[in-house]
């Protein structure tokens, strides 16, 4: 695998809303190396989340190409994308998106259903993921019995349970208080530094952005700033 882990070449994406075409990304070129921790910032509508969706294979671009972990995601058929996502990408959402009817452990075990692991191994791996985020003792709790910070940590455990190459985090601290946000950022930092996970994070929070190794700023679909940050 080359160092260029994520590559977007001449990527354009536009949406049509109410008969009006809105260009979100315009001929964007972007390269992210393995084990990088990238923060994406910019005003609303600048294309941050669209980049996450394209890299995560949740959306497709109008033109250009998107390569992730050696696969050209942009040319993958809709039927192949779910399987690819399950092996390569872990998602962390702003509003946690845990399934409320499942316990923390069951939420973490959910993506493991798609792996060839035995039930015992799935359980072991989910326990390990919960341990990483410091919530092993909350395994049997429903999301409604957890605080926002704990919910997001469970969501992170779910995202890393299948040991994906890249973690895509869309404003992971957006719904959290400062203290919980710091805990979540600390975990993301450890996942990057200790486990070598490539992290692509959208944030409006400058403190969160400072945790990243690289800061990208977008405006109107164009990359306007790209800076490496001190650890």
């Amino acid at each position, binding site marked *: 695998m080359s160092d260029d882990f994520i590559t977007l070449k001449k990527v354009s994406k536009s949406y049509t809303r109410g008969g009006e075409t809105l260009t979100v990304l315009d001929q964007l070129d972007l390269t992210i190396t393995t084990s990088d921790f990238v923060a994406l910032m910019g005003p609303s509508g600048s294309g941050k989340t669209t980049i996450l969706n394209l890299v995560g294979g949740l959306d497709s671009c109008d033109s250009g190409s998107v390569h992730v972990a050696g696969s050209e995601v942009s040319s993958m058929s809709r*039927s192949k994308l779910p399987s690819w*996502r399950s092996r390569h990408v872990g998602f962390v*959402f702003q509003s946690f998106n845990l399934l409320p009817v*499942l316990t923390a452990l069951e939420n973490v075990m959910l993506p493991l259903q798609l792996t060839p692991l035995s039930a015992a191994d799935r359980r072991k791996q989910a326990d390990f993921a919960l341990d990483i985020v410091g919530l092993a003792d909350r395994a049997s709790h429903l999301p409604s019995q957890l605080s926002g910070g704990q919910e997001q940590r469970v969501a992170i455990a779910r995202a890393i349970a299948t040991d994906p190459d890249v973690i895509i985090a869309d404003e992971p601290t957006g719904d959290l208080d400062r203290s919980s946000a710091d805990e979540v950022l600390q975990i993301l930092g450890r996942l990057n530094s200790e486990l070598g996970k490539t992290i692509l994070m959208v944030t409006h929070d400058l403190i969160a952005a400072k945790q990243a190794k690289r800061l990208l700023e977008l405006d109107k679909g164009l990359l306007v700033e790209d800076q490496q940050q001190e650890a």
Partner: protein
Amino acid sequence: MRFPLRLALRHLMARKVRNGLTVMAISIAVFLLCFLIAVVQGMEEGVRSASSHRLVTQSAVSLFVDLPTSYQQKIDTIDGVHLTTKFRWFGAYYQDRKNFFAQFAVDHERFLDMYTKDIEIIEAPGGITGPAARAAVQKAFSNDRRAAIIGIGLRDDERFGFQLGDTIPLIPSLYPRVDGRAWEFVIVGVYRPLKARIPETTMYFRSDYLNEAFDNGEALGTHGAGVYYVNTDEDVQIDQVAEDIDALFANGPQRTQTITEAAFASFFVSAIGNLPLFLGTIGGAVLFSIFFSVVNTMMISGRQRLQESGILQALGFRPIVSTMLLIWEGLIISLLGGSIGILLAIATEGGLIRIFAQNIQNYHIGGSLVMLALAISSLLGIVAGLAAGIPFLRSSPTEALRSSG
């Protein structure tokens, strides 16, 4: 396809009230459906079980016009005719008009011989059982002009509770007695039907008891036969025998119409309108309305779960998994409701037979009906789940994730 079935069960448990109400609605609908189908099947069974060697001769004018008693001797002479008996509707009731059951005046010396394969004598005078019971009842039937044989239903129905040896008074509506009193009958035998065609709540008594009362001026009426039941020999063309009987009376004094017992039974089913179609329509309407109820429940569930579909897709599940989840949920709900409805139908079978004994012959919740009800329930759940789950197949992960859930 790997499938988080546990998730389906958790969703069902998370909405106990809504799903519980839907299960109840389905169970009532399936119970009604089982009831209606069993009624229709009972009617059809009656027709199916008719003897293939028996004819019924009635007036060509109307079933309500009596035939002369002299016809019987003439019918007996026709080639292929084995045995005949008169049947005459009596139309009396026991104590109260609500306590109505069918009574027929028959030829006492022929009746039991004609129905050897149709009824089994289960109670006879002197406690005689087995093959000898029939002879014992025949003897008692011949010895007492007031003798009557009743079906087991009249013994077991608590409204009647007739027992062997009882003298029962029946209040006439067609043939009043001059003294204004009730007709009295003595129970000399109890039978159990061996064919679905034979009701278990009918009483057969001697036609000469009736005729003698008319002759003596004790009751108002004339001799006659409502119909003649004709057993044919087994090796004859039954249609030819029917033609021969009708040809014999073509020039009067009353023309006859002779049909098979099956056709005669069909006539009674169709005489009350196309009841199978009517009941089937009601059953269909019940099913249709409950189908929309289940679809509605599943669609509400589906709308609330669009975001979940987006989450599952982000985790790597195909969109069809969310659809399958709803199908599973629909299936579980409908099978649970269907099973309760079937159990209800089985549990109430005996009670319904007692309540509607005169109206629903051969009512039975059989294995094939249970399987049909389960199949209908399953189909209901699958279609409802599919209807609610199809939007998941069309939505993109990003659209689904954006939905409010």
